C-alpha cells in the first residue's frame, strides 16, 4: 500500500513559518504510522525530526496531531488512517522543530501538583498496606504516560496556557485518591486556584485523545467533587 504523508515542518533556526512537506512511502496496512515516519527519516529525508523511544505505546514520546486528532504514532495503524495522512505537532506548545514541541511548560505543571508520595506520619516498619478496593479507587489514573495528548487537545488550555491542564490533574488524582498518601490537602489546594480544575469546561476532548484510555474528564470531575465536599 502506498501512503502519502503531509507533514507540517518547522525549523525555528531556518524557517520563518511552518510549511507542509509531502512524502510517499510504500508500507503494509498493518504498519504503524511511526514505521512510515521512520522510513522517511531513514531513507528519504534525514532532516525530519520527531521524538520516539519505546515504539510500543509505553514511553509517551511520540504523541502528535494525526489527521486532526492527537494520538501516539506508534499506536495507530496505517490502515486506519487512509492513504492521505496529515501529521502535525501537538497544539498549544512552542514547536521546537517539526513534530517536536517544547514540553518544559507541560512538565512544570506536572511538578506543580507534587506527583510523589507525601507522608507526615511515622514510617511503619513494613510497607504501608492497602486493600484491593483502595487500590482500585485510583487505578485508572495510574496508567498515564505523560504523553501530553490530553492537555494539547483541550480548548480550555489553548485559550489559556496558564490552565494547569488535564494531564497534571490526572496525576494529582492518582495521589489524591490513594489511601496511603497524606498530601491530599496540599494538592487539592493547588488544584482549587483559578487556573486549576475550574478551568475545565467538560469538553471531553482529553478522553478521546488519551492513548491509555483513561477517563480523564471523570478524574477531573472527581477532583471537583472532592473539593466541593471538602469546603461545604
Amino acid at each position, binding site marked *: 500500500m502506498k501512503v502519502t504523508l503531509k507533514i507540517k515542518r518547522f525549523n525555528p533556526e531556518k524557517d520563518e513559518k511552518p510549511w507542509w512537506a509531502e512524502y510517499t512511502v510504500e508500507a503494509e496496512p498493518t504498519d504503524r504510522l511511526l514505521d512510515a515516519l521512520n522510513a522517511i527519516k531513514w531513507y528519504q529525508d534525514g532532516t525530519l525530526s520527531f521524538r520516539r523511544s519505546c515504539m510500543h505505546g509505553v514511553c509517551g514520546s511520540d504523541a502528535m496531531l494525526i489527521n486532526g486528532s492527537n494520538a501516539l504514532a506508534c499506536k495507530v495503524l496505517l490502515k486506519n488512517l487512509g492513504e492521505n495522512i496529515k501529521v502535525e505537532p501537538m497544539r498549544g506548545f512552542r514547536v521546537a522543530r517539526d513534530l517536536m514541541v517544547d514540553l518544559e511548560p507541560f512538565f512544570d505543571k506536572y511538578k506543580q501538583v507534587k506527583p510523589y508520595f507525601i507522608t507526615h506520619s511515622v514510617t511503619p516498619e513494613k510497607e504501608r498496606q492497602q486493600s484491593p478496593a483502595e487500590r482500585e479507587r485510583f487505578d485508572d489514573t495510574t496508567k498515564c504516560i505523560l504523553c501530553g495528548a490530553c492537555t494539547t487537545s483541550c480548548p*480550555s488550555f489553548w*485559550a*489559556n496556557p496558564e490552565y494547569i491542564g488535564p494531564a497534571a490533574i490526572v496525576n494529582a488524582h492518582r495521589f489524591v485518591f490513594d489511601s496511603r498518601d497524606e498530601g491530599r490537602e496540599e494538592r487539592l489546594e493547588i488544584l*482549587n*486556584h*483559578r487556573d*486549576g480544575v*475550574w478551568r475545565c*469546561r467538560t469538553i471531553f476532548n482529553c478522553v478521546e485523545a488519551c492513548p491509555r484510555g483513561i477517563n480523564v474528564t471523570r478524574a477531573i470531575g472527581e477532583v*471537583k467533587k472532592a*473539593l*466541593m465536599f471538602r*469546603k461545604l
Partner: protein
Amino acid sequence: MELYAWLFMRVSGIVLLFLALGHLLIMHVIHNVETIDYHFVAHRFMTPFWRTYDLVMLWLALLHGLNGARTLIEDYVGVRGWRVFSLASLYILGFIFLALGSLVILTFQPVGG
C-alpha cells in the same frame, strides 16, 4: 471563589429549569401571548408569591448568564486591557439590569385597576 461560581452554575441551572418551564407553561401554553396584557400582569403581581417567583427567576437567570459571559471573556479575551474593559462593562450592565428589574418587581403598583 471559582468553586462557588461553579457550584452556583449547577444549582441555579437546575432551579432555573423548573422555574423557566413553569413560566413557559403559564405564559405560553395555558395563556397565550395575545391574551396577556397589563391587567394580567398587574393581577398576578397582587400576590407576593408571583413577585417572589419572578424575582428569584430574574436573579438566578441574570447571574447565571453573567457568570457564563464572564467565563467566556476570561477564556477568550487574551489582551489584558480588553479583558478588564469587557468585564467592567459586563458587571455594570448586569448591575443596572438587576437593579432595574428588582425595582420594578418590588415596587410595582397597579394603576387605574
